[in-house]
């Protein structure tokens, strides 16, 4: 019981405790239908402690909210120590301090009240400050400690308004790696677990393989196929990245096939720089140096852009972009665009200088699970400019429409 009594006393002796000052503009809202004593009694009841009858009789104490500050005399206020506080423009014209029996501003270090209007506020000898109409409607003073202020003679002279300084730890905090456990268990015993801790908390590597497009392509003049896969192994910032794509017509040798091996390094939150080698596996086999970027552009466009310099000295480039549009949580429409460029004519490859080809596609996939999503779609390819001429000369149609069905998968 001793504890209970002590807690009751403690409770009643600290009336303004967690009082919420957010409603400064509406003193009536705080007007206690329930006095603080009654609230405390309710808390005691909540903890299972008996509260004696009549503990909150009107004479037992006056509710703090009843204390009037209408005639608050600030003439004793000494602001001389308030070094950092600038009240030059503070507008307290609507503030009602009627509910603030005890103010302690000791935690408000470094506060800059530059735009608050304090017009008319003078440091001393001032008639009672009129806080009657101050509007702090949106201001939450919940963090001010109002618990220790003396109503009668407010002395701000001892207020420590300086902010707590930021700083490094003092020299007595020591230096060097954390090795306290070595003194208990021995450095040898700790070593393996320390290595494991480092590996487990941020040091992991990931292997990812994605078939972005693996599809059957129905089109005039012989149906075909296409693959477009990629994957990586590595850490958050550095990865080995590989890519392969190719296509062809059933019954014929592949029209194109290539594989890339790239080192990939994060150069921003959403972008990787990729450099490496591309090997063409069909036609006149060539090797290219690759330099590109891959990542996520604003508006969630997946972008893969790379320049290729072949062993023949030919410079080409490819830019691909995809955008996932969720129709439902599992049904996704994916527009896709690809542009191929060349710095020069490469007749043996049927590539003309400038814009070589453009592809626009639209695929609708259904994610049975995230990792497996069959799709249907359509893709239009155009050879452009000189490349179109090369195609026509070769008896090919420079414009081809593919109706595709395929699967997107990853693991």
């Amino acid at each position, binding site marked *: 019981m001793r504890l209970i009594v002590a807690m009751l006393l403690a409770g009643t002796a600290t009336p303004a405790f967690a009082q919420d000052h957010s409603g400064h503009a509406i003193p009536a809202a705080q007007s206690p239908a329930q006095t603080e004593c009654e609230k405390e009694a309710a808390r005691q009841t909540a903890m299972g402690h008996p509260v004696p009858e009549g503990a909150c009789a009107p004479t037992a104490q006056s509710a703090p909210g009843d204390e009037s500050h209408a005639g608050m005399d600030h003439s004793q206020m000494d602001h001389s120590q308030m070094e950092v506080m600038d009240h030059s423009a503070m507008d307290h014209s609507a503030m009602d301090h009627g509910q603030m029996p005890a103010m302690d501003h000791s935690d408000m270090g470094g506060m800059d009240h530059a735009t*608050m209007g304090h017009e008319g506020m003078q440091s001393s000898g001032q008639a009672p400050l009129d806080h009657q109409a101050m509007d702090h409607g949106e201001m939450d003073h919940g963090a001010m400690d109002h618990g220790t202020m003396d109503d009668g003679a407010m002395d701000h002279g001892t207020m420590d308004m300086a902010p707590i300084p930021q700083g490094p730890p003092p020299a007595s905090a020591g230096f060097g790696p954390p090795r306290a456990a070595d003194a208990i268990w021995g450095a040898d015993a700790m070593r393996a677990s320390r290595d494991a801790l480092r590996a487990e908390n941020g040091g992991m590597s990931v292997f990812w393989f994605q078939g972005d497009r693996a599809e059957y392509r129905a089109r005039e003049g012989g149906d075909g196929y296409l693959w477009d896969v990629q994957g990586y192994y590595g850490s958050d910032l550095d990865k080995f990245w590989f890519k392969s794509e190719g296509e062809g017509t059933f019954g014929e040798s592949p029209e194109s096939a290539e594989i890339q091996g790239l080192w990939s390094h994060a*150069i921003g939150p959403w972008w990787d720089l990729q450099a490496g080698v591309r090997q063409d596996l069909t036609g006149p086999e060539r090797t290219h140096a690759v330099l590109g970027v891959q990542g*996520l552009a604003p508006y969630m466009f997946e972008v893969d852009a790379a320049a290729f310099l072949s062993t023949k000295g030919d410079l080409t480039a490819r830019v691909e972009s995809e955008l996932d549009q969720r129709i439902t949580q599992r049904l996704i429409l994916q527009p896709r665009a690809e542009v191929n460029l060349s710095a020069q004519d490469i007749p043996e490859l049927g590539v003309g200088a400038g814009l070589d080809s453009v592809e626009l596609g639209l695929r609708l996939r259904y994610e049975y699970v995230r990792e497996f999503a069959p799709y249907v779609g359509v893709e239009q390819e155009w050879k452009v400019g000189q490349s179109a001429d090369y195609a026509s000369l070769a008896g090919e149609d420079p414009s081809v429409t593919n109706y595709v069905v395929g699967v997107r998968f990853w693991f």
Partner: protein
Amino acid sequence: MGAGAMALPAWARGANLHGGGTIRAGFDEVSGRNIALTIGEGPRVVQGRRGHAVALNGSVPGPLVRLREGEPVRIAVTNTLDEDSSVHWHGLLLPFQYDGVPGVSFPGIKPGETFVYDIPALRQHGTYWWHSHSGLQEQAGHYGPIVVEPSGMDAVQADRDYVLLLSEFTPLHPHTIMDKLKKGEGYFNYQQNTWTDDYSLSGEDRRMWARMRMMATDILDVTGSTYTYLANGRGPEEGLEYLFNPGERVRLRIINGSAMTFFNVRIPGVKFWVVGADGQNVRPVEVEEFQIGTAETYDIVVEPTGEARTIVAESMDRSGMAVATLASCPGARTAVPPLRDPPLLTMADMGMNHGSGGMDHGGGDMAGMDHSVMGHHMPAQGATADPMAGMDMSGMNMRDTSLLPPNVKVGPGIDMVSMNPVDRMGDPGLGLDDVPHKVLTYKDLVALEPNDDLRRPSRSMDIHLTGNMERYMWSFDGRKFTAVSDDPIRFAYNERVRVKLVNDTMMAHPIHLHGHFFELVNGAPADRQPQKHTVIVQPGGSATFDLTADEQGDWAFHCHLLYHMHSGMFQIVTVAKPPSAPDVKRVGED
């Protein structure tokens, strides 16, 4: 509280401690000065879903460890796994070498080994929990409750005293979850915005989010799409019940032992009192709901009426719930409310706090705050009625790294910088600022007993919580633990420091410091700032605590979202005590 008051339901009592085979749901109780625990594994079935469990003494959760303030305890933990394991005593003040973090406090427990935690007389009482600190074992079931009985009379008197430990079950291996998070943003999120959703987002809002390469629906990383949410190891259909007689006062010790889930806890139609937070008594606060972050604990007292009342613990993203029933007789039930609509991230969660309802100057730390740019004449507006409140976002830089202090490493690991990280300890939590009833906030917490260190902090420091959603990188000050494992956060022994955690991400992070309690600078009087071991830092906002670094040794400091920690949001706090320094009186010591 008498021992008899702990009226465990029948299923939680008297089962075989070391039974092989299937892992049981619910927990037994171990107590005394010598306690033996065995780490094992086995298959586990929850509501017909099968998975693999790592479990202590054959159950998930593992046994309730009941200790007594003022008494020492020796806990022998035997590891029968074929990998290292550990037990961390979450919230207990003890010598660092028994804190149970491999690589920080001890070498871990090798397969086949028994490690004895030799814990001196306990300096505290209240509700805590234990869990693995090895790999991702915690997700698989390696956790359980701790209750430390007070040496004197309990300040909270109740007729019934129950533990409600919230967690998750998944049939997936935890490493699979980590792998999916790394590879696919939103992998577990089936509440994304689509062409056909019901979210109150305008086309402009949607384009703004897309432009930022962020998702307004990114509330929790791992969701009910794989998790079955558990109450004492039981799925919502498995009928966990707490018996009461009408008129009785029921104490519920609610522990969030999940790996990745914040829960909104309520008992529809019932007001209740929050009487403890993280094991520390607080002045009772009457609420109807509270959000509990991963690793936090709250003690509540409720006087249920009627035949039955449903306790709902809804995941913060509202993709599922754990359910228990306060029942006046076995089998009594009431309706389980449906899941509420999923919330969306708002302006405030991006670190732009001017527009939302309560401009929040709390936390007591107004140092250096420049009010010259703040309009103080904003009309009150519903905080979330329109998540974007018509703000023109064009031209706003969501990653203005010039706002970061020089000690933060700017790089690909940071995808956002909070523009105006105001104190958000007055926030009830994501999705709860527009419910029509009282929800607990940190500002409601006031310590019941006075704190013992009233010194003004001698210095302050900011720690930035940083991340990249797309790459699933998480860190402090832009550096994953891999980059700072030899560069700990250092405090001088008995130093008192004000620490401000600044959240430069759009996720809420429950930040846990081992071996200490810190005091939230939440507006309570200096001697009544509530003591906690884990603090939620709301997205785009900040939270501030005062710490007396009086527990020497190396201590883990990390985000308690398991996969955030595993991705690098981990540090070591070193409290170095020079041999010449005198011992100070610490928390709980006479």
